[in-house]
Structure formats: C-alpha cells, structure tokens
C-alpha cells in the first residue's frame, strides 16, 4: 500500500512517445487541471502511418508551446509544481528522446524531482481519472496501435501480464485492414465508422487462439484472412461490401478481446474490468465489453476517448503513484523504446 500525503501533489506530465506531443497538469493523480494534446496526425496521414523522423521533428517544434499551454490552463506556475513526470518508454526512440531531454532539463533547472513513467502504465492509469473509486486490484485490457496486453493490476505500479499478442497489435490490424479496403489512416476510427453501416455477421473471419496460451492474442491470421477474402473477391470481379468487411473484421477482433478478458476475470476472480489504450475508443469494443461485464455482474471502467488517445494526463496519473512510491529518475535517464511493463 502507498501512503497518501495530506497535501496536494501537482504533477506536470510530458508525453512524446509516438505522434502526439502532450503535456498536462494533474492534481493528486486523479484531477486533471489541464490536458494539452498536439496531434501530428495530418503530417503522417499521407505516408499511411507514423514516420519516426517526422514525428521527432514535430515534437521538438511543439514541445515548449504545449508545456506552456498546459501550465497556463492549469492556472499554476512551474514553481507550484511538485514533480515532473515523463514517458520514457516504450515508443519511438527519437520521439521519446525529445520529451525525456526536455523534461530532464526542465526538472533540473526548476529543482523539481523527475518521475520516469511507462507509457502503458499511463494508459492503464487513465482509468483513475474519471473513476475516483477505482483502486487495484483490477483487470485491464490495453489495446492500441502498438500494444495488446491483458494486464492484472495487482497494486499501484504492480502488474502481471496475463496475455499478449504474438504478432500484430490490435490497432495495427485495424490500420492494415483499413488500408486494404481503402479507408486510409488511421484505421481504428475509420473502421469503427464504416462498420456501423455494415453487417458484422456477413463474413465469418477466424478468431485466432494461441495454442497453450489461452489468454494470448494473434491478429496476423485474421488480417491475412481479410486480405485473402478481398483478393478472392477481386479475382472473381465481385464487388466488395467494405462496410460488411469492416463490421465483420471488427467483430472478430472485439469478440476475441472480450472473450479473453472475461476468461481472465473468471480465472483470477476479479470483478473489476477496465479498458485502456487508443483502441479502447472503439465503440463496438466498448459496448461489447460493457455488455459482457454487465451479464456477469462485473464493474466496467473505460476512459473517455480524449484519455484513450496518447495524452499526458494519464502520464500525470501514473506519475503520481510512482511519485508516492519514491520512484525518481537520474540526470542520465534515457529513452527505452522496448521498455517492458513492470520493468525499470
């Protein structure tokens, strides 16, 4: 257990792991005083995905204005801040290095402690912001463009990974399928929208299971099945109903994610289930998970879409608990692109 101090702790958080330059001020881990996100998506769209060098260049351009806006909106001065928190992994190394270098210099010059935060811990902790009563232990399904992890949150900062993907992340599969049916990038929101016009039972795509690891995921087989389906249609000169493909593909992904999460909840006897990560904004996933939880009498938590996307408020939430646990970074903090959850 952690000891909660009897005074307010205000954290300035910085996030730059992928294509969002973000800064936020969070009070006591759960109250967002500001949450500024500069999305670079329009610069990456034409390339069909995030270009690391372009992401890094945008980060260095925007990082100071974003931090300044976060401070201004919070109504606080840098002097009022108790600690600086920064994402140091996982993510794109060049992108991470901008936030890490900036945060280190800022914290050093302002004589503030620096808290290194794991990006996925941030996503999980986004759930604390709008659910003031949520406390560990709970089960969290983290789904994003780069991550698919079924995680047991044993305590603040303590995690057990119960399931992970063996190939593509769920969000990656969304991007690839969206590209194949001509919806463009980013795939998640575009498939979500298109699927609303389609029949999720029109096409039977496979639900992949990993032998010997019932809680793990594999999405590359599903992705190939969609591509094969599209090829076969094209060979026969038959029209493709993109909405049906989107809806059926989405259902295949969602059902595996929900099934595995419910299986884990049953196995590990938890009654609190949360979603996190960019794909947690997906409307089909949200409603399917909510319904499955309701049927079993579990409490269901998910962040608002603005807290699902990469943002710094979630880093401030995670950073708060890391701060209370005494976790501090040295001046030699480096970016760790392949940082594992629960490792430092």
């Amino acid at each position, binding site marked *: 257990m952690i000891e909660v101090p009897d005074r307010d702790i205000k954290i300035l958080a910085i996030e730059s792991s992928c294509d969002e330059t973000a800064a936020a001020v969070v009070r006591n881990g759960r109250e967002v005083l500001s949450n500024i996100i500069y999305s670079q998506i329009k610069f990456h769209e034409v390339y069909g995905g995030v270009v690391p060098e372009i992401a890094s260049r945008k980060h260095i351009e925007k990082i100071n204005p974003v931090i300044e806006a976060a401070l201004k909106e919070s109504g606080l001065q840098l002097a009022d801040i108790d600690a600086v928190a920064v994402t140091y992994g996982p993510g794109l190394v060049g992108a991470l290095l901008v936030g890490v270098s*900036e945060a280190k*210099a800022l914290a050093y010059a302002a004589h503030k402690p620096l808290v290194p935060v794991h990006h996925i811990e941030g996503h999980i902790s986004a759930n604390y912001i709008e659910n003031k009563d949520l406390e560990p232990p709970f089960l969290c399904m983290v789904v994003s463009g780069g991550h698919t992890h079924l995680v047991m949150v044993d305590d603040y900062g303590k995690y057990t990974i119960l399931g992970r993907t063996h190939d593509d992340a769920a969000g990656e599969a969304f991007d690839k399928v969206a590209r194949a049916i001509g919806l463009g990038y980013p795939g998640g929101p575009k498939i979500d929208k298109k699927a609303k016009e389609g029949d999720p039972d029109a096409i039977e795509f496979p639900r992949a299971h990993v032998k010997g690891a019932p809680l793990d995921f594999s999405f590359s087989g599903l992705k190939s099945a969609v591509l094969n389906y599209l090829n076969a249609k094209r060979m026969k000169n038959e029209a493709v109903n993109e909405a049906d493909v989107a809806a059926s593909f989405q259902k295949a992904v969602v059902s595996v994610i929900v099934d595995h999460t419910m299986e884990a909840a049953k196995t590990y006897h938890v009654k609190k289930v949360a979603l996190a990560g960019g794909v947690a904004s997906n409307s089909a996933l949200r409603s399917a998970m909510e319904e499955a939880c309701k049927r079993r009498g579990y409490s269901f938590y998910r962040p608002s879409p603005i807290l699902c996307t990469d943002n710094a408020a979630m880093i401030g939430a995670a950073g708060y608990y890391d701060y209370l646990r005494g976790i501090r970074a040295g001046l030699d903090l480096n970016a760790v692109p392949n940082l594992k959850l629960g490792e430092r």
Partner: protein
Amino acid sequence: MKVLAIESSGLVAGAAIVTPEKVIGEYSTNFKKTHSQTLLPMVDALLKMTGTPIEDIDAAAVSGGPGSFTGLRIGSATAKGFALALGIPIVSVPTVDSIAYNLCGSPYLVCPLMDARRNQTYTGLYTFKGQDMTCLSPQKAVPVEDIIAEINAMGRETVFLGDGVPVFRDVIEEKVKVPHFYAPVHLGVQRPASLGALALRYLDQGRIVSGGDHMPVYLRPSQAERVRAQAKGQKA
C-alpha cells in the same frame, strides 16, 4: 553575461559556461554517442564544480545544426527545457560556424567538414580578421567535391577541420590544388567553449530566439519526405 553552451550535434557531447571575460568551465567528450545519458550530467558537474547556480545563466547557447538529427534534438530539447524553466532566451549557433570559430584569428581560409553520410558533407567557408569571422560560403550539405571546387577557385591556403576530415582526407589530398593543412586534435571538432564564445557575439547582435521558437536546422528533409518528393517528381 553568462552563457551556458550545449553541444551535441555530432560525436562530441559537452557544455561550457562562457562570459565575455572568460571560459568559466568546459566539459567535453568525444567518445561514444550516448548524449541523452551524458549531456545533463556534464552540465550538472560543470555548474557544481564552478559553483554556478543555474539561475545565474543568462542564455542557453545550442549547436543549432546541422548534425545528427537525434543529437541536435537532444541538445535543443535540453536548451528548450532550460529556457522554459529559467525564462531565458536561446542562441542557436549554426554548427559549421561554431566549428570554424575554433580557429578564430586564422589567416587561412577555414573549411569545416562534417561527415553528413550519403556521400555528403556539412560544410562552409570562413575567413577571419582578428576576432571577426566572415562567412564566404554559408553552411550547406554538398558532396565534398563541390566545396573543394570552391576552394580551388578561391586559390587560398586552406585549413580543414571537423569530423569529416578522416572521412574525406583521401579526396582532399587528390583534388585540392591549393596549399592546405589540418587542424590539430584539440581544435579539430566541435568545442562547447567556441560555441559559447560565438554565441556571446550573436547575443550582442540580438540574434536570440525564445525556447518555443527555436528549431534545429537539419539542412535535409527526412528520408520519407525525400522519397515522397522523388516519387512525385517522377510522376510529374
């Protein structure tokens, strides 16, 4: 007036505290490329060793590019963090200018050569009259043969320096038609103290930017942008 100079554009990582009167301290390494881990500890050691409170720093000078893209951003983000926390401006010094300034006072034509990979060098041409530096050919990314042609056309004795020297030495020996030589090791690559000294002159001229406005100068688009532009050009 105290300038904190931050250098991380190439293999050299380092910092210096420079005033118009003296270099209070300089810490520089030319060893391995782990600038994100070494830069801030060097700044800290320097400030502590010289008893300088960071609040005494009036401006952050940074090697503004060209150079290693990631290296430039580590230096720039560090300078931006200082600028934001301390409310001080940034002096962005072109990297090739600051290398040339190592040889301040040289009677020869000064030609810094940085290894820019892809058969190019980041380079420029400079002369000095006393402490005043004149840039005859501003920094750019070109094949080394291009700058050699400029040098041969000028017909003046030339001194080469920079981390591109070992890379291009054979070409220089083959193609440079004027008398020439190479800078000694202690002056041959980026020096935080030179960066700081030149930054003080730029500061006098009002060449400052805010932490928010400062951007590294890459002299090159990203590879993705280059490939895309080429593909577009081929289509057109």
